[in-house]
């Protein structure tokens, strides 16, 4: 009888000890999943005017393979929102409105192309403007040269 009581006390102590030891560490493995809930696509024309009511196609890219994921239309501010697919971090967004078309690759792990969007200013592209005038001068010069050579002959 005494042996049984001793054994049960021992078992009780053992269980208590185990509980005490195990308490701080939960038996469950903790998995934290960060999920981006919503992606925003912004479409605007050069000059800064938003592309309103434009057709949007979102392609999901997984392992280099592209498949059409969603289609929709931009709102009054040229914005389109979509929920990303779990496990897919690369997308290609194609926006099209009456003959105008633009596309942008979006990579969730690489900052969502915001840098590119910010770089494209909405003001006058002065450098390109002057470059254009320069080219024109060059073309005019070449044209005149060629014509002059023809006249000499």
């Amino acid at each position, binding site marked *: 009888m005494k042996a049984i009581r001793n054994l049960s006390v021992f078992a009780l102590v053992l269980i208590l000890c185990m509980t005490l030891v195990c308490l701080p560490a939960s038996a469950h493995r903790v998995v934290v999943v960060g999920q981006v809930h919503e992606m925003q696509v912004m479409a605007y*024309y*050069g*000059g800064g*005017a938003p592309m*309103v*009511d434009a057709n949007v196609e979102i392609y999901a890219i997984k392992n280099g393979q592209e498949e059409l994921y969603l289609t929709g239309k931009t709102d*009054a501010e040229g914005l389109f929102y979509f929920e990303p697919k779990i496990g897919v971090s690369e997308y290609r967004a194609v926006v*099209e*409105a*009456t*003959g*105008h*078309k*633009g596309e942008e690759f979006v990579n969730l792990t690489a900052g969502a192309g915001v840098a590119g969007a910010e770089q494209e200013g909405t003001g*006058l*592209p002065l450098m*390109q*403007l002057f*470059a*254009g*005038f320069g*080219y*024109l*001068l060059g*073309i*005019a010069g070449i*044209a*005149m040269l060629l*014509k*002059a050579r023809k*006249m000499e002959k």
Partner: protein
Amino acid sequence: MVHISDGILAPWLLGSGWVITVAILAYALSKMKIDDVPKLSVITAAVFVASLIHIQFGPTSVHFILNGFAGVMLGVLAYPCIFIALTMQFFLFQHGGLTTIGINTVNIGVPALVSYLIFRTGTGLSIRTKVGNTKHRMVLFGAIGGGLAVMLSLAFVAVELITTGEQFLETAVLVVGTHIPIIAVEAIFTGVIVGFFATVAPDLIHKR
């Protein structure tokens, strides 16, 4: 709106655009004289920059085209002018597309030639009208040419967009509707400039 981007139209349409453009370019350049080059360059610069001037109207933003103006000022040479301007607009401002330069030049350049024909026929009319003297007729037909060229360009674009499955009437109404201010402004602009040149330097206006 008139700059169609890459990857929208079918290859046969892009191809025929290039064929027409190359043909008209070859013809126009063969007609070009050395004296025309400076004027061609200046007008090309104007057309090139014009597409940067945007007007926010309703849901879309529209920009100047100035093809009617080019037509009235340059005649047949308006075609190379628009070709060069469009090519530079693509490479420098990313307007339109590379494969579509041919068809875009047709869309903008052919109406320019039409506006030149209207201008030439109109100013050459010997019928006595209320707008009797040549300068008044130049202003009137310059304005008509300037406005009509834009409208024709829009019609061309709308027709081409049918092939992509867009509804013609819907697209045409949308495109023309949003461009009404541009049509009006370009008509007035062309009329005024032509009137100005008719007074100051009549030689600058294309007559042939």
